[in-house]
């Protein structure tokens, strides 16, 4: 009985998210465009997330390198460390970790902000002022999240590789140019493009879920907290689901070799 109820709740929620996404494509992308607010959101979502993404990327590259070194040394392939770390970061770890950090920061922020606006009737006030709140608040945030995450991922990857370079140089001395030449010599179009393309979907998922949870927040401060929390949880799960589907697709297309 409880299982049936859970399943029904799951399908109900999925349906509502799908309808919300449908509304974004039918209403949110039509003129009048809120260009000023979109640029403002790009600044908030993109530029203001950069320090956090950069810091986590740097640590991720550093730690990954230090952790991998003993295993590679054991097999006598320590020289392949830059290649291994580079491929891992660019193809998988960089996009997924950046998206998860992004979901934690931006998903919760959007969920809480819109939830709070809903509870304090600011969304109604906006509608009364002749503004379509769905376009002004939702569409701009979803588009900004979709556009900013790929850029942040590329920057995060670059900083991560720099962290890896520092990690390599803790125990040995490697030339900066040689280190990056080794990485870029190994990486191909098939490594980079699927990784970049899937980050657009990650960004869309984070923006969509954050807006959905905030826009449909129930009354009260507890509702706002719950919106922020469930926005992070659901968008994180969605990131893994999208990643799994993307890997399956690239495998079918033969891009994983």
């Amino acid at each position, binding site marked *: 009985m409880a299982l049936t109820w859970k399943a029904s709740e799951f399908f109900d929620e999925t349906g509502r998210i799908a309808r919300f996404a449908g509304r974004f494509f039918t209403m949110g992308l039509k003129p009048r465009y809120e260009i000023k607010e979109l640029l403002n959101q790009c600044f908030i979502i993109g530029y203001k997330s950069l320090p956090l993404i950069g810091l986590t990327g740097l640590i991720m590259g550093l730690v990954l390198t230090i952790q991998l070194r003993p295993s590679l040394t054991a097999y006598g392939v320590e020289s392949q460390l830059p290649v291994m770390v580079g491929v891992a970061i660019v193809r998988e770890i960089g996009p997924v970790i950046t998206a998860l950090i992004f979901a934690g920061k931006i998903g919760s922020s959007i969920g809480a902000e819109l939830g709070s606006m809903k509870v304090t009737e600011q969304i109604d*006030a906006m509608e009364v*002022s*002749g*503004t379509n709140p769905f376009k002004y608040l939702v569409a701009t945030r979803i588009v900004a999240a979709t556009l900013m995450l790929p850029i942040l991922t590329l920057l995060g990857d670059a900083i991560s590789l720099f962290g890896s370079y520092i990690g390599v140089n803790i125990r040995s001395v490697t030339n900066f140019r040689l280190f990056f030449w080794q990485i870029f010599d190994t990486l191909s179009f098939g490594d980079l493009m699927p990784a970049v393309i899937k980050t657009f979907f990650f960004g869309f998922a984070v923006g969509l879920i954050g807006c959905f949870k905030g826009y449909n927040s129930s009354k009260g401060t507890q509702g706002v907290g719950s919106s922020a929390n469930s926005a992070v949880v659901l968008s994180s799960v969605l990131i893994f689901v999208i990643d799994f589907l993307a890997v399956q697709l690239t495998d079918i297309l033969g891009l994983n070799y």
Partner: protein
Amino acid sequence: MMVLKNETPALTDPQKSIGEDVIVVEHIFKRFGPNVVLDDFNLVVKKEENVVVLGKSGAGKSVLIKCIIGLLRPDKGRILVFGENVPELSHDELDRIRTKIGFLFQGNALYDSMTVRENLEFPLRRHWIGFSQKDVDALVMEALENVGLTHTVDMMPEELSGGMLKRVALARTMILKPDVILYDEPTTGLDPVTAREIDNLIIKLQRKYQTSSIIISHDMNCVKNTADRVVLLLDGKCYIEGAYEELERSNDEKIKQFFE
């Protein structure tokens, strides 16, 4: 003249009502699940008239004005604002008619990420795209002058007191110089002195701009100060309507409980 619900005269012909009657609510029904909030409710508001809708908490007063401005859709019935049936209007038509209607929210609903100036500019920018910054600045300062808060123009809402927030919200409501203003419990949560100031502001601005108003309230001082006519909303219906003094003298138990 005090009129009991079952004596309510037949509503005027909508064609005939245009001009004289600003808002005509005809036989509206609204329910949320099994809870019937408005049950065949009728109301007419005339030009430059202040109508107070009185009722207990949860009686459906806020639902009524949200239906009038199109934030909620009634299940049945017509709501004519300047002769146009609000529930049947498209989004663009609603936006057009909303320029003539101001709405003061119970919790003020000021945008907390914007300064007072930006809060007041927001509706102007949405409706009057062609206006220069100089015109916008002049209108913002005029609106703030009306409520005596020009010095708060660059402050954030969090820096203002409850009474000041209400006055800024009132300034934002008035900035497009609407013909009709809907007040959702304008004095709730304010001390008696500030509440009286808000009442006086409502009357002052109504006289200055010749607006019609629907004021939702259960603050009897506010009702007494602002009402030309009082409508008592009970069990989703218009139980009685009349002047404040007439209702105050009534011996009906359901009416008396509001005046005790």
